[in-house]
């Protein structure tokens, strides 16, 4: 598992690289490949969840041109892929990294809750899918469950005397983390180079 601070810096570098390179498909491909190597089937699962959103991006950008649609969709897919680095990392290490980067504890603890709820809600969705037949019933049950979850969550915070204190952990980066960081810096340098030299994406 990637160390929290390295994970955050890597995601930031990869996302900026995609943006700086003007959605260059070479950069997008490298980012997708790198994340796929690191996360294997986990990135595929996350992308499958986002298929409807990716599809909307594809359709809407098709209005401009096919080339634009391909580039935008690839860049969008790459951005979602980078998200899987955070999603599948140790959440308490991410909280530790945010505190390390001087983000206020109050914000970190609230962000941690949001992240903690994702897998629980995903699990709820899978269970409701098994129980309910029909799209409408599925959506209605899921929305009701989410509302009840949020209510019971706030009740739990009261029970546990929530005081805006974040629970976190931290460790030193390993060799693997350093290599990943260097790769991300390399990708960032490449994207800056592409931007600086004004190399159009179709010439790559």
């Amino acid at each position: 598992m990637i160390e929290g601070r390295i994970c955050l810096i890597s995601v930031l570098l990869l996302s900026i690289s995609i943006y700086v390179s003007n959605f260059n498909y070479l950069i997008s491909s490298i980012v997708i490949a790198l994340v796929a190597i690191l996360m294997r089937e986990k990135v595929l699962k996350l992308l499958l969840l986002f298929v409807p959103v990716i599809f909307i991006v594809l359709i809407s950008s098709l209005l401009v041109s096919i080339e634009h649609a391909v580039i935008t969709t690839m860049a969008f897919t790459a951005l979602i892929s980078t998200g899987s680095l955070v999603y599948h990392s140790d959440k308490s290490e991410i909280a530790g990294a945010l505190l390390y980067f001087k983000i206020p504890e109050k914000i970190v603890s609230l962000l941690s809750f949001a992240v903690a709820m994702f897998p629980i809600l995903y699990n709820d969705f899978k269970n409701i899918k098994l129980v309910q037949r029909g799209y409408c019933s599925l959506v209605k049950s899921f929305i009701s469950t989410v509302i009840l979850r949020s209510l019971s969550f706030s009740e739990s915070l009261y029970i546990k005397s929530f005081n805006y204190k974040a629970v976190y952990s931290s460790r030193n980066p390993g060799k693997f983390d350093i290599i990943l960081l260097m790769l991300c810096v390399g990708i960032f340098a490449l994207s800056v180079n592409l931007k600086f030299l004004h190399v159009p994406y179709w010439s790559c």
Partner: protein
Amino acid sequence: MSIKLFQYPNGSVGLRDFHEVFSGSEFIRGRTGSGKTTILRMMNGLIPNFYSGELIGRISICGSKPNPRDVYLVKQEPEEMVTCCKVIDELVFPLVQRGVSLAEAKREAESICEEIGIGDLLWREVFTLSTGELQLVEIAAGIASSPLFLILDEPFAHLSRRNVMRVLKMIKDYRHIVAEHRLEFEPYFDRVVDLGLEEIEVEIEKPEFGDVLYDGELSLREGELIAIVGDNGAGKTTLLKEIARDLSSKRRKFGLVLQSPPYHLCKNTVRDEVEERFLKEFELESVASRHPQSLSSGQMRRVAIAKAFSSDIVLLDEPTAGQDINFRRKLVQLLRKYKKSAIIATHDEELAKLCDKVVEV
């Protein structure tokens, strides 16, 4: 605790004329909806700080106002208590909020887990645990917090006998109050507070088996009741879900009731959810016009089970959790009366005894 009346904003009476002094090691028993959860919620201040309503009475915890620091409540549904992704963080969370340093909190949590026998769960993700395992984690978090009072709302509903005994051993060193429907554990407490529970004898028809309806993970005949039993985390729910998927792929109509009742409810009223003939059978007439999601957890479960009765094959996961002892016999009676074939995953030994076959996983 001296309560003349507590009324929820929707007008339903939560508690009336209840006067009791709790000193620890008390077992609260009562039928579903008798006010057990309401009493526990009053003890830590959830009522009236979180749940509004009209409260006439007085509650005092060792001379001070009810508050969550003095009284730690472990809720009936452990999924509703989750605040962190990892088990260790979940255990550490309440301690850290009380001002304990992170390192000390982790040491404390680890030692409690070893004592309670869940040390192997410490580094797992919370959502990969079974409901029973999660219940143990939440109880351990409560114990680690060392409150003045540890109050537990149906803590044994999702636990195997072995784990219940472990929990009882752990909590006996603390002032504890338990509201529970599994009366077999009553003798382990110093005092019983009875909110009114009459055992009703129900005549159960003799089973008549027909053709084999399902032959896959298990073999289920028409009119047969099979109980799946096993320790927490043994895979009872997983097996039930496998059977559901198998039945789905064979395009068989079935009703599946999982442990979280809101999954099953999507209509505006209970009457829309449940067939008219089952409303009376499941004693849901009084709430028939209410929104199903506004009911108590136990009532919601009843609605979900009644809804599943529209299919001939019924798969039930812990159907007696949150239900009083009369419900287990009533459930079996109704399953027999309407010639249902059922597979029931349960920790309830009495319910398992009433089934035709018991499968241990």
